């Protein structure tokens, strides 16, 4: 009796993971479904309407263009320009934005005074700064970098500020009564307490910044994926344009899912859930 019960339990236990694995696989497939659908619609339209290659090309042509660009090292060069630009901009934005966010968040009056201003800045997209930036810095990487950092840094400052301000006051009061200095409060309370918000700000900023980067590259024309697709337009290379667009989307997903999101999950697991 008890042995059969135990036996069936063991069987159930060994069966369960298999079901879970299958379910997980299905879930992954579900993510791919819309892409497959888009591809099918595209191909159907292409086949049924007989477009000239100046207007629309087949998915197969795009694939060939992709293979060509990759095998000749062109894609790597343009993509690495964009990626290193967003990486550098993110790093600089964190280095400047987090301390500024702390300084503002700790000071109640500064936070009140700056909240409206930061929202106002959020309304002026980085691209709207392009005319001024081009006049000031010319068609250079500096212009692109300034636009991307501007776009990235506002959500980082804003979320750092929010993060610091949502830390319960009792945490800091308690530590001050234990003799903590200002520096100690930053290290032991504000930094760990604000980290989940900082990461949220970084993730938002990377999303906005990536878009601003492509736009800036299209105007500045000094390399990067924006330059690639805008340059292809001049020669009517539809296949290159679409290839570039797909790579832009894919790289964003890769950066977000493989780098930014894991950091976010880590901090939320470590801090977010613990904070309650």
């Amino acid at each position, binding site marked *: 009796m008890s042995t059969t019960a135990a036996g069936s339990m063991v069987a159930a236990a060994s069966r369960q993971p298999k079901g879970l694995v299958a379910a997980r696989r299905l879930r992954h497939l579900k993510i791919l479904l819309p892409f497959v659908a888009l591809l099918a619609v595209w191909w159907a339209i292409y086949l049924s309407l007989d477009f000239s290659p100046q207007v629309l090309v087949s998915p197969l042509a795009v694939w060939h263009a992709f293979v060509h660009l990759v095998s000749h090292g062109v894609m790597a060069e343009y993509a690495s320009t964009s990626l290193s630009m967003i990486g550098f901009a993110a790093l600089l934005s964190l280095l400047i934005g987090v301390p500024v966010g702390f300084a503002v968040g700790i000071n109640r009056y500064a936070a009140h005074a700056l909240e409206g201003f930061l929202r106002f800045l959020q309304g002026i997209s980085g691209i709207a700064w392009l005319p001024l930036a081009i006049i000031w810095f010319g068609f250079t990487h500096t212009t692109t970098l300034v636009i991307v950092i501007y776009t990235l840094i506002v959500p980082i400052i804003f979320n750092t500020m929010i993060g610091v301000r949502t830390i*319960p006051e009792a945490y800091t009061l*308690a530590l001050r009564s*234990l*003799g903590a200095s200002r520096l100690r409060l930053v290290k*032991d309370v504000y930094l760990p307490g604000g980290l989940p918000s900082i990461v949220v700000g970084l993730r938002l900023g990377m999303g906005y910044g990536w878009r601003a980067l492509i736009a800036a590259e299209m105007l500045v024309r000094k390399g990067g994926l924006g330059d690639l697709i805008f340059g292809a337009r001049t020669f009517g290379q539809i296949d290159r344009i679409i290839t570039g667009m797909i790579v832009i989307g894919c790289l964003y997903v890769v950066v977000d899912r493989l780098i930014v999101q894991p950091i976010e999950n880590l901090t939320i697991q470590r801090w977010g859930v*613990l904070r309650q």
Partner: protein
Amino acid sequence: MSEPDTPSPAKIVVSGFRHFFETADGPLQATDKIDLAIRAGEFVTLVGPSGCGKTTLLKALAGFIRPTEGHILCDGKPVRGPSPERGVVFQELAILPWRTVRRNIGHGLEIARVPRSERERTVTRLIELTGLSGFEERYPHELSGGMRQRVAVARTWAANPEVILMDEPFAAVDAITRLTLQEELARLCAATAKTVFFITHSVDEAVFLGDRVLVMTRRPGRIKAVIDVPGRAAGRDWESFKVDVAMQAIVEQVLRLVREERGAVAPAALASSRRENGLGA
């Protein structure tokens, strides 16, 4: 009220303490002329209606706020800011959620740069004393409400302050756990000879723990009455406390004094008392 002929010297002296908060509708008076002397090693409890300025007084004692009027002396020296000599235990959870029990309790010692081995010894002793053994490496969210407050109490005790200020530390804990925590606190205080200033809403708690019970008027609060409680809290337990006729007479007396104030609280005063709590924070 301040007794010049007391045997033990006054650890804390409050004289002419009045405090105002700035609000949008002008200054709001939180307390009115509080005079108070707390002897070294004494356990003083303070009861009063919501918003009467209890927390304001405690924050001033801690050094978080400067009194608008009057003086606060600790060991004869004016209180100018928070100091590790005066530990604070808050009502709300004030231990850090990203630190384990052990690291939370040792935090004050870490700040004071106490060498690691000595720190570990103190922390281990307090973990045993507060019944947290086996939970050293847990995070606060893995603990019950009662255990979290034990961690907060242990953290304050670990830093070894001479004065401990407690602001309704057990208010958020369930009723049964609260009884245990109160008994433990009484024993802990007796074992470590601390001067304690303890705010509470509960008349039972005030009488059970206190050597003296102060009753405050409604806002702007001042000390309305001081009631001595005979015997030491250390030996008390709730079962015998509840059937002790002398103790229950004191409870009734304090309750009457508090009720007089509670009955007189107008709804408007309650609403602004909520505002005061926000501003006092």
